[in-house]
């Protein structure tokens, strides 16, 4: 049954349905509504768990790490500065192969200070060894949160569910919240193979010499790549119960004959879908919604882009001093094709700048412009800058 819910409220309910036993969090906009809603569920006795209001995001991540290795399902959420403060722990959690789930309510990073949305935060920790799934709307955020626990616990890899701050977290949508029975049928009780236990003492997090470090890295990397199978399978299993797919690794939408694709991650998907209806006279375009950024689905991407002439990558972060982040990886993946499409790289919507429907014709128009295909911030207003900075 559809209910009108704010994204944060919906995610809080999804988390509660997964029966986490320990939750630790520290407030930061735009994540706050998620943990406030969870706190209320706990206060009302609707969620039985230890909710720990910690003194920093660093401790939030450390507390859930401790809880997970002591045998409890755990949850945390953060954004922006909080993600960066957690960074050291995030790498550590992943290296220990602890199955955790967290929400990143994507927000820009200071300085300059901005509380608004882009994806610089989760992109900054893209190589921390977590699975990263990006949500296009709030229904996906709900379904992906539930799926994330099953993926994490099957693969012993932590999963970061990324949802655009404000655009999703603070927006009311009609959402189907699954029943407890549906989730219980889908998600078995928490199990972790290296749970600490005084009856059978083990040591976790030991020092390794150069003789073993490469092997540890190799197996971690391989595990993330192999998780592609699990991400697809879990999406399908959940679809059988809920009737909804969240898009596996990636989805392609649009006319078969289109020779151009726009690749996006996150909520801008909805904007471009609406734009395609708004501007029917534009040339046929496919929309590629990249849901799984880690693992980066090279094969699925190649299959999706085979035969295309142009792929426009529109991202909400920037590799300062380099250029595209997502675009660079897309370019590298497609270079494996015999006739790779041209990849055009754009950033837009940084620090919460609105991405209007007109972005679609604007992007397509660039294909007729002479361009070196390196990353450009397409919505930058250069006249606001002094001459030397343009």
């Amino acid at each position, binding site marked *: 049954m559809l209910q009108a819910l704010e994204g944060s409220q919906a995610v809080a309910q999804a988390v509660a349905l997964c029966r986490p*036993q*320990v939750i*630790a969090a520290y407030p930061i906009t735009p994540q706050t509504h998620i943990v406030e809603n969870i706190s209320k569920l706990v206060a009302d006795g609707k969620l*039985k*768990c*230890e909710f*720990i*209001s*910690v*003194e*920093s995001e*660093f*401790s939030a991540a*450390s*507390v*859930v*790490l*401790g*809880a*997970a*290795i*002591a*045998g*409890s399902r*755990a949850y945390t959420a953060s954004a922006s500065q909080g993600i960066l403060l957690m960074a*050291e*722990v995030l790498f*550590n959690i992943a290296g*220990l192969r602890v199955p955790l789930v967290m929400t990143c309510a994507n927000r820009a990073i200071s300085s300059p200070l901005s509380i608004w949305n882009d994806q610089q935060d989760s992109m900054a920790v893209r190589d921390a060894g977590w699975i990263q799934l990006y949500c296009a709307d709030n229904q996906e955020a709900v379904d992906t949160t539930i799926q994330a626990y099953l993926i994490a616990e099957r693969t012993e890899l932590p999963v970061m569910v990324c949802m655009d701050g404000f655009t999703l977290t603070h927006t009311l949508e009609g959402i189907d919240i699954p029943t407890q029975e549906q989730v219980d049928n889908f998600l078995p009780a928490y199990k972790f193979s290296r749970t*600490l*236990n*005084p009856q059978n*003492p*083990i*040591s*976790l*997090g*030991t*020092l*390794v*010499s150069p003789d*073993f470090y490469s092997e540890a890295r190799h197996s971690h990397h391989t595990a993330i790549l192999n998780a592609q199978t699990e991400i697809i399978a879990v999406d399908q299993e959940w679809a059988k119960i809920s009737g909804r797919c969240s898009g596996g690794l990636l989805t392609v939408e649009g006319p078969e004959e289109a020779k151009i694709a726009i690749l996006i991650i996150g909520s801008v998907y909805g904007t471009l879908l609406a734009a395609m209806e708004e501007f029917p006279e534009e040339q046929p375009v496919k929309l590629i919604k990249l849901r799984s950024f880690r693992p980066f689905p090279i094969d699925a991407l190649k299959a999706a882009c085979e035969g295309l002439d142009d792929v426009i990558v529109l991202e909400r972060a920037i590799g300062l001093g380099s250029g595209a982040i997502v675009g660079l990886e897309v370019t590298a993946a497609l270079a494996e094709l015999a006739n790779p499409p041209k990849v055009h790289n754009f950033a837009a919507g940084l620090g919460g700048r609105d991405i209007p429907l007109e972005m679609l014709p604007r992007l397509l128009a660039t294909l007729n412009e002479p361009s070196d295909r390196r990353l450009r911030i397409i919505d930058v207003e250069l006249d606001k800058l002094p001459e030397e900075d343009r």
Partner: protein
Amino acid sequence: MDFSQLRNKQPRFRGLESGHRACTGCAEALAARLVTEAAGPDVMVANATGCLEIFTTPWPESAWRIPWVHSLFENASAVAAGMEAALKVQGKSTKVLAFGGDGSTFDIGFQSLSGMLERGQNVLYVCFDNEAYMNTGIQRSSSTPHAAMTTTSPPGKERMGKRHLKKDIVSIIAAHHIPYAATTSVAYPSDIRKKVRRAMAIEGPTFLQIHCPCPLGWGHEGYKSIEIARLAVQTGLFPLIELERGGLAGVMPLRNIRPVVDYLKEQQRFRHLFTDELRAKEELEHIQAIADHNIEIYNLRSDGHKDAFDSEGMDTVRRGGMRWA
């Protein structure tokens, strides 16, 4: 059956086995063994980065016989907090311990420690205080005593070792009004056992600071660790105290108070204080004044009474129950 045989059949529980890679005479290793022996097998440990973590777990070996995790340098308290919360919801009574060096306790992990204490979590935090960052090669920490030489507080024309004072961590911890905080020393194993048992019996946050000489960092022979640790107590430089809910609840009295030079002259880290220079003499006086101040505020003088729990009596091995006090 003969009593001695019975003892052999009941070997004492050891949480930390021999065979690890600590330096000869490492007091931190000894203290960790004493703590785990007293705490018993129904525990879990979150250990911060530092010597103890490094020398006990070179993969694929581990010297621990209790569940143990190392995450990072500055989050042992928070990891322990998560473990405690998990055990609590699971209805288990296993006690969670957090271990950290002085660097991780006084400095980088101080915030997460303070948070854990403030939240009243049932964790025994043990700080193995060897008064510097030993694992990275003897750099000063906020626990390094005044005037001590480390690689980042070297003496020279303009400096006499560390310029600042040793942070009074136990007072800061006690100011959280936790049920129990205490200092103890590796020179007094029965005191360590007593205080660990005391802390283990309390449901709530407790804190122990154990003074642990480091032969490498302090510059003394390995066999002298215990002697030097005892001198730190007997000079008044490291008072052994207990605080309950922030209030002083007990001190170990000093039967024979020793001058600080007896302690300092044994260690290379203070050797620049033993020259004819005026500034060296001034620093020695300064350090003596610190010891005198401790003796005064904690009323450490035992006034000549023989007390089984004073700095001499505690050394005495007795038959019967007393030394297990």
